[in-house]
């Protein structure tokens, strides 16, 4: 095994995605493809009110419909408070949810479940179920949620872990280093600014769906579109009062998730229906349900105060985030903490820093995990504030951000103070090529030339152009929390089964984990047969979130590979009747160094199975990060504004990422490009909107637009590769960071173009048009 990137043979190569051929041939590999035709259909009866109590339910008409099997309401299940958030145990989210409740907390909340023999009967039953509601006043504006007159979203007595239910505060956190007030007061330049990040949605193209059945041994089996199969098993066990050993959760191929599938949502309802009926059941959300009943981004107002010197050096940063978790507190505390913990250490030269956050309930759909997990919200305000500082000082914003940002070998005390929902761990940036990211991007984008060439004074009669930049950081898993494991089992044809709990949701993690195993064992990647995410078969892994898979699961695979190699050497020494030091593994063979005799892995493993020293070569490795190595990124964006309409069009986006070793550059590039597009969508038009009574207005792909392939100009993803010494073959994470910067880079570019500073996303044409009219 080598640590020298120039000698890598498998990693660092664009190896074919291991699941590619099946996917390209349309094989039935997604959850819905496993649905048998005759499985019972489960549908949700949704609350028509944003805030209401169920007074009375009359099932008779609905149950009388031919084909309707059962209807389940809060009267049919015990109240077991839990959180749907698919996090490690104990979850840092409040236990403020029960599977079926008598109180409705947003339009679309689950009032009842219908189980029927077919779609049509289920749909008719949903319409026919009579529910009388006692309608309550809702709180829909998250900035008014904490007021003493606001109605209480969670007034139930049995919830646990809500910070202050009497003020609608799901969670609260604060930390300070240094005397922030004093540092602000004695800084010659002060900036105070607030930014609003919208309630956008992940829009994974595959809707959430679950198939549940009892296997012949009467064990509950769940095939589901989930990012967190092991957490799903644990949480289902709790709410269904069924031992984990009686539950099996299988994740097939997933039509992406971006965090929206890091919750136990369709699984709970399908599993309940399956246990109640004893029959196979299927539950598929339609697109509207995926918008409303899964997760959204936590919309936030983030206020940043900066105290700086006249030369642009920042003395102190003070950040306050007001976060809207909607009806339930899934991921509430942790997302808000990441808002600070994965943005503030980027500017580590400060003498003081403070972060305070309140996460409040409203009668709106649930926020939860979404790629970036708070960092995009924090960065919008932090980078925006630094851009405002540069404007105040009449300096190049890139220079202001560069001189204040972290470099290799440096640290920030925030790492130790802030983890996710708990204390963090001290760490230094062992690998950091942020400076290179800046330089490479600056040149590739032609930053300085474009900064001079564009701006309000250089507008044409029809258009004006501008450029903006932003820097970002993320993490690689949650240190000392996220655990992954992998099993490698040798076969008598020289192949290896690689069993991983890690959850490939379209990202390509099965591929890079295979590459890691192949590199470590010095065999072609085709010799690795990867199988992921089946709680009966694969060892434990927390799942796909927190940018953890490459680093944490990757290190687990590396650990397994090292152990397997050691086992092979031991067994080979036995076969060769020599010392273990006299045996070597080379190019898929074991070699006796004393006499030069070699056996291929196939010959060797056949001897292991059928020779004198019978044994199965099989080892399990596991890993928990001692640290959460930081990927870095610099983004540069050029936009054009149509002066007649106010429409902002991205012309070019260049992002340069330091993700350590890019284990599969094509897949890494895909992560950055895809994240860039998601962020541009949020910057330009993605936001869930609601009526005055809390009814969703645009919960369809017709009204909630995501970017198609025409409207975003050119995107370039480049890499400034570093070598992370604690990572598998030098790798850090790459999946989330790309979404952090484009939003704020776009606002910064609009400022450069017009001199107008916008503080709220998405930035619609109308807003720009009206502001331009005032300006002209």
């Amino acid at each position, binding site marked *: 095994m080598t640590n020298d990137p120039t000698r890598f043979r498998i990693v660092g190569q664009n190896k074919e995605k291991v699941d*590619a051929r099946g996917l*390209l*041939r349309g094989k039935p590999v997604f959850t819905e493809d496993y649905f048998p035709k005759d499985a019972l259909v489960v549908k949700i009866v949704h609350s028509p009110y944003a805030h209401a109590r169920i007074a009375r339910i009359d099932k008779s008409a609905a149950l009388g419909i031919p084909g309707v099997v059962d209807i389940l309401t809060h009267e049919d299940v015990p109240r077991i408070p839990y959180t749907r958030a698919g996090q490690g145990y104990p979850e840092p989210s409040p236990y403020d949810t029960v599977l079926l409740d008598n109180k409705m907390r947003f339009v679309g909340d689950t009032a009842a479940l219908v189980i029927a023999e077919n779609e049509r009967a289920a749909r008719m039953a949903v319409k026919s179920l009579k529910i009388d509601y006692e309608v309550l006043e809702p709180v829909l504006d998250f900035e008014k949620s904490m007021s003493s007159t606001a109605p209480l979203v969670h007034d139930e007595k049995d919830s646990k872990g809500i910070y202050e239910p009497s003020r609608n505060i799901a969670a609260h956190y604060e930390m300070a280093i240094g005397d922030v007030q004093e540092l602000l007061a004695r800084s010659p330049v002060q900036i105070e600014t607030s930014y609003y990040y919208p309630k956008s949605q992940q829009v994974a193209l595959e809707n959430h769906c679950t198939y549940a059945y009892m296997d012949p041994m009467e064990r509950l089996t769940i095939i589901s579109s989930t990012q967190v199969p092991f957490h799903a098993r644990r949480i289902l066990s709790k709410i269904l009062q069924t031992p984990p050993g009686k539950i099996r959760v299988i994740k097939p191929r997933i039509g992406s998730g971006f965090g929206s599938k890091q919750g136990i949502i369709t699984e709970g309802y399908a599993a309940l229906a399956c246990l109640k009926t004893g029959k196979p059941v299927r539950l598929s959300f339609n*697109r509207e349900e995926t918008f409303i009943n899964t997760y959204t981004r936590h919309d936030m107002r983030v206020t940043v105060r900066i105290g700086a010197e006249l030369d642009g050096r920042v003395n102190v940063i003070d950040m306050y985030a007001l976060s809207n978790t909607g009806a339930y507190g899934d991921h509430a505390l942790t997302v808000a903490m990441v808002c600070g913990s994965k943005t503030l250490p980027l500017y580590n030269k400060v003498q003081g820093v403070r972060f305070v956050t309140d996460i409040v309930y409203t009668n709106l759909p649930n926020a939860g995990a979404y790629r970036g997990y708070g960092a995009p919200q924090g960065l919008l305000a932090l980078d925006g504030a630094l851009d405002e500082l540069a404007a105040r000082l009449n300096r190049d914003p890139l220079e202001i951000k560069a001189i204040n940002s972290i470099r290799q070998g440096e640290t920030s005390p925030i790492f130790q103070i802030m983890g996710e929902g708990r204390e963090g761990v001290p760490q230094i940036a062992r690998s950091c090529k942020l400076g290179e990211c800046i330089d490479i991007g600056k040149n590739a984008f032609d930053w300085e030339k474009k900064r001079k060439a564009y701006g309000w004074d250089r507008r044409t009669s029809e258009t004006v152009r501008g450029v903006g930049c932003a820097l970002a950081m993320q993490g690689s898993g949650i240190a000392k929390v996220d655990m992954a494991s992998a099993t490698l089992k040798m076969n008598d044809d020289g192949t290896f089964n690689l069993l991983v709990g890690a959850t490939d949701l379209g990202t390509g993690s099965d591929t890079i984990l295979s590459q890691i195993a192949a590199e470590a064992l010095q065999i072609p990647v085709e010799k690795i047969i990867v199988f992921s995410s089946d709680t009966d078969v694969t060892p434990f892994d927390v799942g796909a979130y927190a940018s953890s898979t490459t680093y944490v699961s990757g290190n687990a695979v590396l650990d397994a590979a090292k152990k397997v190699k050691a086992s092979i050497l031991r067994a080979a020494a036995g076969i060769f009747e020599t010392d273990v030091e006299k045996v070597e593994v080379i190019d898929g063979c074991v070699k006796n160094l004393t006499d030069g005799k070699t056996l291929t892995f196939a010959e060797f493993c056949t001897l292991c199975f059928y020779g004198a020293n019978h044994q199965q070569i099989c080892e399990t490795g596991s890993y928990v990060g001692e640290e959460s190595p930081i990927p870095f990124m610099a983004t540069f964006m050029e936009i054009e504004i149509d002066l007649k309409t106010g429409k902002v069009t991205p012309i070019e986006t260049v992002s340069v990422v330091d993700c350590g070793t890019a284990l599969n550059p094509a897949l890494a590039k895909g992560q950055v490009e895809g994240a860039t597009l998601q962020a541009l969508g949020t910057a330009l038009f993605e936001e869930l909107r609601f009526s005055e009574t809390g009814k969703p207005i645009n919960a369809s*792909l017709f009204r909630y637009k995501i970017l198609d*392939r025409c409207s975003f100009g050119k995107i370039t993803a480049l890499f400034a590769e570093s070598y992370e010494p604690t990572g598998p073959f030098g790798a850090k994470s790459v999946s989330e960071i790309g979404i952090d910067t484009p939003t704020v880079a776009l606002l910064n570019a609009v400022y450069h173009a017009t001199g107008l500073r916008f503080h709220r996303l998405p930035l619609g044409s109308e807003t720009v048009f009206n502001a331009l009219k005032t300006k002209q």
Partner: protein
Amino acid sequence: MEIRIIVNGAEKRWNVEPGELLIDVLRDNGYKSVKKGCGSADCGTCTVLLDGRAVLSCSVFAASVDGKSIETLEGLGSEQQLHPIQQAFLDASAFQCGFCAPGLIMATKELLEKETVLTEDQIKRELSGNLCRCTGYENQVKAIGGLMEKKREGK
């Protein structure tokens, strides 16, 4: 009612209900490559070819395709030999989760079978109804652009 159709070259007689949609009938009969991303003709994942034209099968009544010919992704390529579009997508890393791929590949097939050779901008416009959330679209457009180039050269 019974419909007689040709699916991927094979004749089929299927009983369908009035009001049943083509996507559901295809999936119920094992053509699982046809994906339902929205059910409202907004995402393109259910694209199939109907007499050679790309249609959104979530918006076509099954009863209306009687006597017609349908192509789905199941009809393209084999284990030994991928279809050129599949191969181009593979070579260009044009997809991640693969959920949008079946619809996009079928829409691409229609474009390639048209007489005209499209420019990159035209490809983008023609395929703007096939959404993808994972990639940045760039590699897809590159893959299809390459296929157009081959078509121009008459390969």
